[in-house]
């Protein structure tokens, strides 16, 4: 990975954190905000594979955790797990499905949200154990799916020159 790629990924982390903490709190739908950093993680992991995807997710999650009241490391854990999972899925693909961006963003958003809630509950964050969570997670995942359309091209730009072999070989249908 070149320094240029590292710089672009760093800029992506900073941008997603700034947007998540300044713009998206006001862009809620039905009271639910998307998880920009998680979608960026999915977009990056889809290009760079499981290991780098997990590392990027961990870094992006840690950066976001600095601004949340939930325990430090919680977003890092869920983003890393999702980044790793998306990288594994991507490695198994011979061709890029038509709706990879919204599909992976939505599913990844749902899995990431579920991991976040499960670990938060184990850490004693009782506020996540509410019926509200049952509709917050799918709504946030749907919002993430929409943002996938925007963030996948951004992820492709940020990871230029650092793609995993499977991503380089994948072609759109």
């Amino acid at each position, binding site marked *: 990975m070149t320094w240029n790629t590292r710089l672009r990924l760093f800029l992506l982390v900073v941008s997603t954190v700034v947007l998540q903490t300044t713009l998206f709190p006001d*862009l809620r739908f039905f009271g639910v905000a998307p998880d920009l950093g998680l979608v960026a993680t999915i977009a990056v992991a889809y290009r760079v594979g499981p290991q780098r995807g997990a590392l990027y997710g961990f870094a992006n999650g840690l950066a976001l955790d600095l601004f949340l009241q939930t325990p430090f490391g919680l977003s890092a854990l869920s983003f890393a797990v999702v980044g790793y999972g998306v990288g594994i899925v991507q490695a198994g693909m011979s061709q890029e499905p038509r709706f990879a961006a919204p599909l992976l963003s939505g599913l990844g958003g749902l899995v990431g949200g579920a991991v976040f809630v499960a670990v938060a509950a184990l850490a004693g964050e009782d506020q996540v154990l509410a019926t509200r*969570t049952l509709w917050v997670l799918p709504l946030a995942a749907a919002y993430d799916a929409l943002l996938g359309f925007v963030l996948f091209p951004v992820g492709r730009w940020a990871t230029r020159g650092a793609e995993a072999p499977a991503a380089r070989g994948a072609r759109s249908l």
Partner: protein
Amino acid sequence: MVVYRRGNRRPIIILLIITSIALITLDVREAGPITGSKSIARDALSPVASVADRVFSPVGDWVGGITRAGSLRSENERLRRDLEEAQGSEAKVDVLESQLAELSALLDIPFVEDSDAIAARVVSGAPGNFEWTVRIDKGKSSGVGEDMAVVTGAGLVGKVVDVTQDSATVRLITDPDSGVDVVTADYPGPDGEPTRSTGFAKGRTGSDLLRLTGVGPDARVEEGMEIYTSGRTTSLFPARIPVGRVVEVEKRSPEQEILLEPIVNLDSLEYVKVVPAAGSAPLP
């Protein structure tokens, strides 16, 4: 390094999971340098965030205006009605004010002032879906500190939980981690003398209402009754700030099941005041 070797993927994710769990544990136990690191990082990103706030604030307002058009219309109507009522009771207020001044002088009660309070603008809501906070545009440089009470003219908003040089995070009273020592408004006791009950108002998981606990079965708490901060020595909040209005009471033993609606509309906060710990609250 073994963790980067192709075909040997698992060690890196295991390492990241262990690191995350260690960080979560340290933060939950409030051990280690995590709180300090958070503050430093927030300060570092603060200039970028300020610029972003200025750039994105009109976008957020615009979208907020669209998504809340219906509620804004009804709020407008309600405000118009309130204004008419307020104009009608202006004369009454003049009389009450002069009475209050006389009584304060007579009882030598330090007059409640808001000259120490720090006015701040709410710049954004909570970034996540599982916390009930807002960020304000005043921080350490303006005298804002942790645990200070945050109010509007109507009542209590919450308390400061995190401060950077130029901004602060306020945990709203509806956050399940919030709790406020409160008293009820006066009501006639068994001997006819005015009395009041004390309790603890706590945010409820998944709800915009607060739960009032610690009120015995004999207390006469009724729907519509206002609840205030108690100002006890153990409480962070100054006394007599309106917190909520009782919306549901269920007589039970050993304590009543009481729900409160916050006095302040926490969904549309724009300007707030931070009350320094040593100061006092603005007159409700």
